[in-house]
């Protein structure tokens, strides 16, 4: 049975780019533990020799013509960015 430690939870939160406050840790651990214990039930299923289902249909590679299509309204695409400059998204300085 899975036993999630505080360190592991913080490691996972770090991978997912989320902060967890000290006072939230206990609650997250309990919930995660409960759900994982419940999820253990999948191990009771007999899946010997079964392939994994990846995606829901039998389609494999879907091809289309490699054509350039212009999205006319690029102003509208950019309008949702909180900061932009010269038609580009702006981010904080990365290289010091």
């Amino acid at each position, binding site marked *: 049975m899975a036993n999630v430690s505080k360190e592991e939870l913080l490691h996972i939160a770090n991978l997912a780019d989320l902060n967890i406050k000290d006072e939230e840790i206990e609650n997250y651990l309990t919930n995660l533990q409960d759900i994982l214990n*419940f999820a253990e039930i*999948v191990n009771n299923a007999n899946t010997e020799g079964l392939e994994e289902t990846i995606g829901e249909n039998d*389609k494999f590679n*879907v091809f289309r013509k490699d054509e350039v299509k212009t999205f006319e309204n690029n102003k509208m695409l950019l309008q949702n960015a909180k900061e932009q400059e010269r038609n580009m998204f702006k*981010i904080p300085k990365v290289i010091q």
Partner: protein
Amino acid sequence: MNITNLTVHELVGKLKNKELTSEEITKAYVDRINDKETNVKAFVTTLCDEALEKAKKIDKKREAGEKVSDFAGIPVGIKDNICTKGIKTTCSSRMLEDFISPYDATVTEKLLQEDLIDLGKLNMDEFAMGASTEYSYFKKTSNPWNLNCVPGGSSGGSAAAVAAELVPWALGSDTGGSIRQPAAFCGVVGLKPTYGLVSRYGLVAFASSLDQIGPITKDVTDAAMLLNIIAGHDEKDTTSYEVEKKDYTKALNNDIKGLKIGVPKEFFAEGINEEVKEKLYEAIETYKKLGADVEEFSLDIAKYSLATYYIIACAEASSNLGRFDGIRYGHRTENFTNLKELYRNSRSEGFGEEVKRRIILGTYVLSSGYYDAYYKKAQQVRTLVKNKFNKAFEKYDVLLTPTAPNVAFEIGTKSNNPLEMYLADICTVSVNIAGLPAISIPCGVNRDNMPIGMQLIGNKFEEEKILNVAYAFEQEYGFRSKYKPGFSKK
């Protein structure tokens, strides 16, 4: 005439023979929204003025003898995770509170091509994660049958709006039951189409291999009509299928003699409320009376399916929601000194608790050391579930189960216990895991006048069969003429 009580197929007739104009219809709905929305709280965004404006234009087109669609000038509500150009699409999340979609989802385009009128965007659990619409960042929607109860979720706003007659029909999305379960809780019809029948382009992704858009309507005929509009292959969604265009209303012939209905006994086992079972058994008797061949059988998947669902859905969500970083769109924190902090703080402030919980669970099951035990195993169980359904459909045309283990519960009773909330999906998730179509229709009420839903599951692309089986019961039972939501607070 009580306009808002009419079904869409009735409205179509009245528009055609000029008994009603689009303006009259739209006005009736706007008045109804003004009257009831404060109680129900189904909308995130209402578009009443715009809708009336458009209705007048469509009436002019009709008067001028221009060729218009049968549905031209009929209002519709859209779940707030389906993109609508120039209109906010929030997913009921702080993350997308100010997001104005730069394009229309394919289904939105299809609605607009028919000149349907968008009456507003409907509330939901944040990013469609939930079974009660309580996880919306903006508001808690109430169930029109009892305002102290949840409408179900995640398409709770859509189902409540249809039940309260705030919209004639609506679109929802279903990842693990999010169309069917709220439809059951609100006493309306909800159809989850076969995976790939309806384009997902412009639907904000939660779990891409499970998500599907579908109709929530007053009756089965309206569901078939709305499916006619939204179904079809789309180049922009590579998982959408190239299937021939059908008129699903043609399947509604009321003839189910000799049709084989399988009743999986595990879906009536422990945890299913007695009154729910009772109504389902009555429905089974009705089907027998109508000439269907009903048989109980064993489909031992419900318990695996739910665990499998939460592993797969959360894994996919953790990946899909990685795109929200505060740069191109979405909430952006004011509290940062470098790029990493900008990402982390934007995400931590923008997402609600349940969304974060699922991202963390999803990240966990995909992480090194746990991938095989959880994710890989769940993908194998998914194959097992599909195989078992395939076997069932060798013998039966349609499977019949409850839609939910119980009727709508009171607001606040489950929102602090995630696992208990997840159990609300026990009857519906296996359908998504296998990519099948299923419909929920009301089959009675309990002693407190709360609706009970019946689920009919079909084989892939056999929407016509489940629609007709649902139609046969609906015609015989007449739920809409027997029961009405009371807007009470019990």
